[in-house]
């Protein structure tokens, strides 16, 4: 039984079958990549996992508990963090404040009415933020306004915010999309480090094969809304079904 179990998910948008009978099991401690050509349903699947979309049928359970129908913040509080395709950060706030918000969310839950508490008294939060910034190599950028940073740094910051919550499962939606080669490699390094040091289970949706094969222990190939192959990376490359899906054979 995996940490995340997806059973018989179907999702239609009008006449389009975006997801058809998706079954997927993510084992704890693995990096599980979901790949597939454009329009294969990768993003739809991710949006189902984070509570943004409700599937027509099927079930999604996390640690044995159904997460369907939960709001994004509730799913996050269970221990699932999401990294977006374009980094979603608090762009007008400083790097330090960005990470601090994640730390508060972890410690105080979804809502805390403390209008007279003082941020400068929160020593444990400050320490944790410092630690997180060191972990992602951003300690020198702590006072920078988030919007002013490079794409790679924004990604780093978003990752720091997710890690500050000690998630059990990290969902990454094309974490290197639109990045320069150097930034991509940095991100791969960062993710590898996270996997080695923290052993967080990750689900990566990715286009870039270089990223997928550098990181994943397991790969699921999605085509036209259905998983066609699930295997370890070394066996995916030579699989004729995969080549067919990518070269357009499946459309015939």
């Amino acid at each position, binding site marked *: 039984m995996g940490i995340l179990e997806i059973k018989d998910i179907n999702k239609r948008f009008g006449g389009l079958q975006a997801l058809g009978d998706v079954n997927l099991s993510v084992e704890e401690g693995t990096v599980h990549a979901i790949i597939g050509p454009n329009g294969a349903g990768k993003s739809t699947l991710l949006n189902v996992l984070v509570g943004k979309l409700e599937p027509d049928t099927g079930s999604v359970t996390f640690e044995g508990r159904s997460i369907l129908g939960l709001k994004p913040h509730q799913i996050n509080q269970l221990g699932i963090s999401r990294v977006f395709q374009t980094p979603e950060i608090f762009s007008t706030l400083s790097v330090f404040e960005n990470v601090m918000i994640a730390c508060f969310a*972890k410690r105080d*839950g979804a809502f805390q009415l403390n209008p007279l508490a003082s941020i400068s008294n929160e020593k444990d939060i400050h320490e944790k933020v410092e630690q997180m910034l060191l972990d992602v190599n951003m300690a020198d950028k702590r006072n920078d306004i988030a919007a002013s940073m490079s794409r790679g740094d924004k990604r780093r910051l978003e990752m720091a915010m997710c890690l500050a919550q000690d998630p059990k499962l990290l969902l990454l939606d094309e974490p290197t999309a639109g990045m320069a080669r150097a930034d991509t490699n940095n991100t791969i390094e960062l993710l590898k480090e996270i996997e080695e040091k923290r052993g967080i289970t990750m689900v990566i949706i990715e286009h870039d094969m270089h990223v997928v094969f550098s990181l994943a222990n397991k790969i699921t190939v999605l085509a036209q809304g259905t998983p066609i192959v699930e295997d370890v990376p070394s066996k995916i490359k030579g699989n004729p079904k995969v080549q067919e899906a990518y070269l357009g054979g499946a459309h015939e």
Partner: protein
Amino acid sequence: MFGLDKVDTRTFLFVVAITLLAPFILNPFPSESALAQFNAGYPDLMQRFVIFGIFAIGFNILFGLTGYLSFGHAAFLGVGSYAAVWMFKLLSFNIVPAIALSIIVAGLFSLVIGYICLRRSGIYFSILTLAFAQMSFAMAYSVLSNPSFNLTNGETGLQVYASDPQYLKGNGPDNTHLFGLEMNSTATLEIGAWAFQFNIGFYVCAAFMIAAFYIAMRIFRSPFGLMLRAIKTNQTRLNYTGLNSRPYMLAAFVISGMYAGLAGGLLAATDPLAGAERMQWTASGEVVLMTILGGAGTLLGPVLGAAFIKYFENIFSKINDTVLHTWFSFMPESIENFLVAIIYPFVGKGWHLTLGLMFMLIVIFLPGGLVDGGMRIWNRITGKNRTQADPVADPKPAE
């Protein structure tokens, strides 16, 4: 001090000093001089400065921090006034129960309205709040004022009559008072050609404003305030970070509604009268102007904006053509008439025109409002390069 860091303590003490010394600061010209009409140091106007300061400080907690633009905040002010006047009618002219009730009623009112309006964001939220405020206005103006059930006394406005019960009045004063201290009593201090007026009502309101400012400051520096600023920046990220934005918004809305209620209660406390026009959309728009003019999201901005607008409203509107003619009487008559003709549309009844022009100039050239302007001048003088007027939540670690 007071749970604030050094910079904030300084700002706070500055506000306290300015407020307490307002009768001097606002009265720079000798009473008999031609410039005396620019003095703002008389009780009625000073009370308005601090009361609308409170209103704007509260509005800024919602608009400045979360970016949600409410166009119906005057409704809470009006409700506060009505609640206070009812306390005068039923109990006595003591302002304490009146102000307590006005805060509570405005809080409950904003809880209901906020709960409904916050289902939408952006322009739809603004429109919903505007609709609610106009409904409240209509209710106060006509619906809730009929012979069988007269809660608001319609267009006459709610006021205290001799026939009202006033159960706790006893031998108490016939005017609003704080445990016997009458709000309208004024002491005048004459120094040379100057006459400074110290009014109980002003100092009571000023004490409330200082408390209101202090609480706002604490909110700005709290984790709660940080979440509100996060809502303004990126609500999606906030939700995916495990935070529920809805209750945060509602709490901010209710807090700012209670500030408006307090302001309404104080308006009634200085003049025991409540009219429906206090709830009209123009009154809601005014607080938006005050906040933006002074600098939304800054601590001092709203207070400055409120004082600025009230000053214009009361001082510029008093300059009529007779006054203008006396100003320019030293010139040849043709030039005098020409100048008066040019300036006249901008003063007196036309003060809105001047205000509108200044508002445009500030929004275009100083998007951060008066506080931003002040900061730029200060930086010019000191040669420093501080970009933000309010380094909100100093991200230095706690030492």
